[in-house]
């Protein structure tokens, strides 16, 4: 822990992440308006002022309120996505590594196929087909995340499975499942933790991108990507509408990335860059 605290950028990252976590958790208390429906058409598109620090949008809603509430959407969906893909990817990766043979080949082939779609392309294809809403975006991004965990966990377990303590457990008659859960998984946790922390920032960006494309959250949900999309059309007259949520995305992702890098350095000093 002390070693971690010496990593300056890691501490800054942690501070940013904590700030966003607290601020979004407290959003309903700090900003007790309904971010979706509290409108005031008399105060449409007002530039930043003392009353509305980040101005108001085309329906007279306070932008700062919407940014805070948008954080709730982005962060909670990101955590769900990372959770889903980590659990699925890990399970499949461990399964492939301990079963070997055709199951390994099939799963690896499937993962190669998922990896053949660069960036958000696969998510676009899935959401465009299933219908544009936040749930489908969540499903799509979770599927997109599987290959990363699959590959990391598969190679970690392959590195472990022939070690003596694993063979000893097998010789004692433990089932494959028991060996995987009790012996292999706990020893392969650190690459998993690294993968998870680095994935959160990326996921926040992907959710915002889909939102901007109109394939994620739908109005009036205060979602950062969607807010930029809405603000973009008023860009010349009211630039704060798209600048504010974009900066929130940048800051949140920056925090998670800095924290993730520090955690990676912590668990895997050899990878230090």
């Amino acid at each position, binding site marked *: 822990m002390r070693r971690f605290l010496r990593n300056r950028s890691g501490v800054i990252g942690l501070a940013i992440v904590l700030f966003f976590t607290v601020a979004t958790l407290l959003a309903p208390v700090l900003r007790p308006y309904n971010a979706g429906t509290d409108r005031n058409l008399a105060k449409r598109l007002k530039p930043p002022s003392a009353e509305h620090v980040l101005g108001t949008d085309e329906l007279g809603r306070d932008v700062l309120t919407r940014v805070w509430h948008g954080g709730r959407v982005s962060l909670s969906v990101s955590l769900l996505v990372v959770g889903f893909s980590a659990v699925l990817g890990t399970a499949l990766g461990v399964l492939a590594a301990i079963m070997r043979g055709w199951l390994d080949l099939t799963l690896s082939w499937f993962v190669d196929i998922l990896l*053949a779609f*660069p960036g958000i*392309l696969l998510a676009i*294809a899935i959401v465009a087909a299933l219908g544009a809403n936040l749930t489908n975006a969540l499903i799509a991004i979770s599927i997109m995340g599987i290959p990363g965990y699959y590959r990391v966990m598969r190679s970690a377990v392959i590195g472990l499975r022939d070690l003596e303590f694993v063979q000893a457990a097998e010789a004692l008659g433990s089932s494959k499942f028991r060996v995987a859960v009790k012996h292999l998984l706990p020893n392969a946790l650190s690459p998993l933790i690294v993968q998870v922390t680095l994935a959160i920032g990326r996921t926040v960006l992907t959710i915002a991108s889909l939102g901007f494309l109109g394939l994620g959250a739908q109005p009036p949900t205060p979602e950062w990507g969607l807010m*930029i999309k809405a603000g973009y059309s008023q860009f010349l007259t009211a630039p704060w509408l*798209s600048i504010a949520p*974009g900066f929130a995305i940048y800051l949140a*992702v920056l925090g998670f990335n800095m924290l993730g890098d520090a955690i990676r350095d912590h668990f895997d000093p050899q990878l230090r860059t």
Partner: protein
Amino acid sequence: MTTYLIRRVLGIIPVLLGVTFLVFAINRIVPSNPAVAILGDKGTVESQRQLAEELGLNKPVFFDVEGYRSSGRFGQLFDSQYFKYMGELLTGNLGKSFMTRAPVTDSLKVRFPATMELALFSILIGSTLGIVLGVVAALRRGTWVDTGMLFIAVSGVSFPVFWTAIVLIYLFSVQLGWFPPAGRLNVTSTLQPVTGLFVLDTLLRGQYKLFLDSLHHLVLPAFALGTHAMALIMRMTRSSMLDVLRRDYVRTAASKGVPPLVVVMKHAFRNALVPVVTVMGLSFGSLLSGAILVEAIFNWPGVGSWIFNAITQRDYPVIQGGVLFVAAVFIVLNMLVDLSYVLIDPRIRY
């Protein structure tokens, strides 16, 4: 080497097959009937049925088992949606746009060069900046220069690319007026395309003013699209350089009295290049997907803005064809990157 080459090239076939199958499957699990979607409110039950027949939607999805049983012809088994789709794919037919009725393949031919041009310039800007800054950071390790570079690198992967694009337009087009906010050329100018890469075409046609104009239009979108790649390339260059600079042969060269610049460029940099090229190749692929956002904002008439518009209009054949095409390009690109290692590093043999 030849065996490796053949194995690597053949190896992309199962992945390509899987990709086409996955895109097909995604579009078949849709509950909505495409015939209904195309005809919209105007469709009658009869016209929907006709269109469904025309599109082959009345056929079985994978195998026509019943048709085979009743007719006894083996070929009848493959009279299905999937095999029809694969057959058309192999002949380069990706269907027609719901909106314009134009064949998807034709639009791809027109739009792909524009995306290619943008992606090439993005990777050019991204790798030039990334490599230079990465080398500088490695040589100044542990100083404030290094810290600053690392901050730029981590920031570069934290910006949402569509937001960067919007902010760049706001700053450099709207406020300062230095660069045009949209398009590939001034609206008034005309250019007869040769290759579709306007930077090249203007030179081939001898229209030097237009050449500068096309470059001028490229700067902002290419920079916006390239920031992410720049950050990744910079980090990889820095860590790879740090790794190589510790090596014995670098120390030997330096102690022999080889000038520092020559040591850095010839002994260290060249050997640090392999992982950097990997990152460049991978970033190039993700540029193709980032282009969907950037092209839409800069009104760049490439594959990206085309897919973007198709998404807003629910034009499924275009989304499907565009996604397939970009994935195929990405697969081939990854293969080329793998093969390029041999050229860069003679120590690598397959």
